[in-house]
């Protein structure tokens, strides 16, 4: 197989158990290159646990994950960024005391080389590198529409803006695969629209594979190319939004929950 036909992400028989509690099991799916792939499911279905395995925060009990043809589970957490995986956090993983620009620059840490001596002595190499990466970080901020907040301490900004900082930071990491953990959770309708548009632009304008975990069915059905539905830690459906919405088991899993109204409002 040539690299270009290898899926970006190949998940095989993945399982995660905490003692006798099973977060998920038997997960097998591929995410193609350049795909916008969504994982949905009711509360406690195992979505965030899956994310934590993919970002190496949890070690799975069984199964394998290949990223871009290589074994993802052999990478150390801090090597993920360099390999090309970026993620955002549901409850924000920002560094509150640093400015927005500095937060985004942390995303470029793995692309920079200046160590203690070169930075401390402020040698030409460190200066040039810093200038170059500040420009790239600013570009990511502008893309996310928050350039004007660049020099504000991140912790003082409203939640909606901080979510955008997370996305800008993930973008600045120059990843091949971006994991978005509930990017519109806890947001107003207007903010949801803005983030949805931003995610869409990420997918269209940047050469990115996106894996999205989301609660907001309306958003997922509108932008995802393929959807995986988890229920009680198992895959109950996988396919295009249209296919998934017709699936008996999906409808049953969501019965009395938010799917039905969401189906009604989601455009075709």
């Amino acid at each position: 197989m040539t690299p270009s036909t290898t899926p970006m992400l190949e998940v095989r028989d993945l399982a995660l158990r905490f003692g006798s509690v099973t977060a998920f099991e038997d997960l097998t799916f591929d995410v193609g290159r350049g795909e916008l792939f969504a994982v949905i499911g009711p509360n406690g279905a195992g979505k965030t646990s899956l994310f934590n395995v993919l970002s190496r925060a949890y070690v799975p009990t069984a199964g394998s994950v290949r990223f871009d043809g290589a074994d993802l589970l052999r990478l150390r957490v801090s090597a993920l960024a360099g390999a090309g995986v970026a993620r955002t956090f549901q409850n924000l993983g920002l560094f509150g005391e640093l400015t927005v620009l500095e937060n985004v620059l942390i995303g470029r840490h793995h692309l920079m080389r200046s160590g203690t001596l070169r930075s401390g002595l402020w040698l030409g190499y460190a200066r040039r590198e810093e200038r170059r990466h500040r420009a790239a970080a600013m570009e990511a901020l502008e893309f996310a529409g928050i350039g004007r907040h660049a020099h504000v301490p991140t912790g003082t900004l409203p939640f909606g803006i901080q979510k955008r900082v997370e996305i800008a930071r993930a973008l600045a990491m120059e990843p091949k695969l971006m994991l978005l953990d509930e990017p519109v959770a806890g947001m107003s309708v207007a903010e949801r629209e803005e983030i949805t548009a931003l995610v869409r632009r990420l997918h269209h304008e940047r050469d990115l594979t996106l894996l999205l975990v989301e609660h907001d069915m309306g958003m997922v059905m509108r932008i995802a190319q393929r959807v995986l539905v988890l229920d009680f830690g198992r895959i109950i459906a996988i396919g295009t939004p249209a296919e998934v919405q017709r699936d008996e088991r999906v409808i049953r899993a969501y019965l009395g929950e938010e799917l039905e109204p969401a189906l009604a409002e989601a455009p075709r």
Partner: protein
Amino acid sequence: MSMHTSHRRRFGVTSAGLLGLAVLAIVLPFGLNAGQLTTATFVLIAAIGALGLNVLTGYTGQISLGHAFFLAVGAYTAGVLGGNDHLTALIWLPAAGVVAALCGALVGPTALRLRGLYLAIVTIGLVFIGQHIWFNVPAISGGPGGRSFPAVAFGPFDFSAGQQLTIGGLVIDHNGLYYYLALIILAAAMLFVWNLVRGRPGRAMQAVRDREIAAAIMGVDLARTKMSAFVISSFLTGVSGALYASYLSFATPGQWSVLLSVQYVAAIIVGGIGTVWGALLGSIVIFALPAVLQSLIPQSSSGGLPIDDLTSIAYGVLIIVFFVLEPHGIVGLGRRVASLWSRIGLRPGKGGGLSQEAQSIENRSEATWAG
């Protein structure tokens, strides 16, 4: 265009302020009596160590009470190399930093397993282990009775008591020489740390302090970052310890106690955790306090309380007051005043306040020497 000039102006104000401060620091010894100059010199020497602690605790979030140990390692390296082996200060002063840094590199890995208070307790253990060694290995420490330390001497410079240097009619005595040496080293160290925390390694340290897991996922190597914080911190502390002992010229093992560590922690809390200037400002408050209290309160009228007890009480009160009211210390207070000032200054409704924030990146790196 107008925002450009306003940035220039701010940069100008900052450089003017720094220049003024530098001139003040240089002429200060000529305005002080011998006792005050001694205090000022101790403050500058301590500020080098406090800056080291701020790298480790303030910027990287690794709470350490082991500072007394690293100060002692620096001091005894100076004692052994300069006093026993009669090497020049050009060797024993950097060596003090290097040996302390090596000890820091040995201790660093424990910080990978332990966090917060647990790390604090382990580093206290370091002080006790150190004291055990200092009391029981006379070849290093002179034993319980203490040992003498070499004065700084290199080339035409001799910092021994009673010596003096005459430059163009200006006489600089033993105290003054130590003052200027400490000033130069402190300024260099502050500049180094300032560059560091504005650049890649310092950002990584602050990310580790704020959220370790998120930092790792961003590609920050936790082990390496904590390790370099320990090494930089203990290097500066070792140099500070060597200068301190050399200036004292005599020290006993009992001086390197946990109380000394606590004074340094107090200094960065009062001055400003995670700030470059906080190390100096806090050291001024903490290490000049005994002398100031002594001069303010005549021994007879202190109600029977010795000055040492009074200063201990004052440390405690200062730590509590700053923790509760201004966690960023004196530097935090200064920032509040500055932002109040600029808000008053900006009030005549100028547009472009936002675009000023988005102002180009090079300007920013040179704009604020305020942290």
